[in-house]
């Protein structure tokens, strides 16, 4: 990839967060990873009940508190102050990660350095020599939801595609990503590699193929949407 591509349409980070929020059905249990994914919370419609999980031990997480009402005992996984909604529940760390590992969350939204066409995720380490390694809950989140969505720019600052044939960065999880929301387009991970679910603005399957250097195809029209928590 080079950086002298014609500039394709991109959506802003807020627009992308709104787009992800719109894809999450009412009643879903959702974990939003640290960083950009946290933005998704701001775009969840007020009139729909979507229950946020934070892996440090809470379901029913609410927005940040009013100034002066920061509670150091009530924080999210990014160690930012939050509030509790009516209906919230607290639990300890093993129960919280058991909830994740046991596949009870409907959606998890994560950032990424790279996503491979097999759904491998790399988002915890650049593998740079001398860097202090730190993983937190990344590997648990990667395998811990029915739908693992990645939210990311399609290209790095130097113009390289974050969608790749094979990850070169250290893996966070193998074959775990189900969909990638980028500033250029939305991609489903399918058994045949990436499929373009929605191309924003003037992006096309072809232009995206050129940007990513990957064989891409259009997603099937009516792929199943996000599963509900219950099976009624």
């Amino acid at each position: 990839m080079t950086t002298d591509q014609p500039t394709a349409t991109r959506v802003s980070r807020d627009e992308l967060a709104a787009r992800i929020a719109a894809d999450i059905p009412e009643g879903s249990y959702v974990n939003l990873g640290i960083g950009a994914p946290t933005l998704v919370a701001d775009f969840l419609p007020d009139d729909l009940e979507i229950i946020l999980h934070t892996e440090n031990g809470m379901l029913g997480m609410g927005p940040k508190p009013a100034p002066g009402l920061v509670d150091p005992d009530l924080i999210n996984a990014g160690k930012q102050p939050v509030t509790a909604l009516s209906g919230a529940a607290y639990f300890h760390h093993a129960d919280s990660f058991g909830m994740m590992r046991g596949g009870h969350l409907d959606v998890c939204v994560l950032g990424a350095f790279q996503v491979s066409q097999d759904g491998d995720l790399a988002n915890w380490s650049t593998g740079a020599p001398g860097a202090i390694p730190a993983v937190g809950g990344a590997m648990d989140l990667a395998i811990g939801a029915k739908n693992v969505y990645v939210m990311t720019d399609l290209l790095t600052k130097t113009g390289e595609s974050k969608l790749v044939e094979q990850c070169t960065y250290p893996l966070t999880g193998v074959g775990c990503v189900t969909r990638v929301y980028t500033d250029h387009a939305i991609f489903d991970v399918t058994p045949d590699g990436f499929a373009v679910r929605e191309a924003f603005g003037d992006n096309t399957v072809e232009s995206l193929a050129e940007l990513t250097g990957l064989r891409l195809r259009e997603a099937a029209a009516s792929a199943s949407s996000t599963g509900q928590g219950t099976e009624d």
Partner: protein
Amino acid sequence: MIDKTVASVEEAVAGIRDGSTVMIGGFGRAGQPVELIDALIAQGATDLTVVNNNAGNGDVGLAALLAKKRVRRILCSFPRQHDSWVFDELYRAGEIELELVPQGNLAERIRAAGAGVGAFFSPTGVGTQLAEGKEERVIDGRTYVLEYPIKADVALISARQGDRWGNLVYRETARNFGPIMAAAATTTIVQVDEIVPLGSLEPETIVTPGIFVDRVVAVGERAWTRGGDFVGGVDIEGRPLADATASREGDQ
């Protein structure tokens, strides 16, 4: 009469031996046993292995324990933070060993120690650097890696209230690692805001039964509660807001 309460943090941490494995509760400021960590620093035990989610922040608490070179080895999930300079420097100088554990495996391994599970197959970390050299197995079509319990000689944790039997309740997300560390350590030492009379804690709502607890010490209410009710007026680290800061925040 069973009385696990002790009068001071010094008494609470007495007898922690050099070379011990010490679990320290907390996730961020929430549930961090600040007063017990300070007492451990004063107590002087060294050559410790520490189990904590992080590796210390700023220059206080766990970071201060590290700065005094009391810690030989640390097991944690997220040692790298914007203000983890003490750990960073020791690590780069090769003066501290690090076992990096995904947070959920850390929690489940601690839980396994308390619950007498010999080892368990976890789906977390499969196919990554952090599972290298670990036994893999495919069960029911999914690949898992074998993870072993993390036991400790001592756990230092923080709870909201405790009674003389050692029954504990926590506050909000400050619960985090407390209940599982209490069960995983030979000697569990708890700081509470308040010691309450036996029978005050509703049996349905006790989170850690006293069987897991050895010593309880009251350290007084946190700055952000009064009479048990949340009053705010602090930053995320629990530091009282200066008036100026408070009004600045109010403007935002």
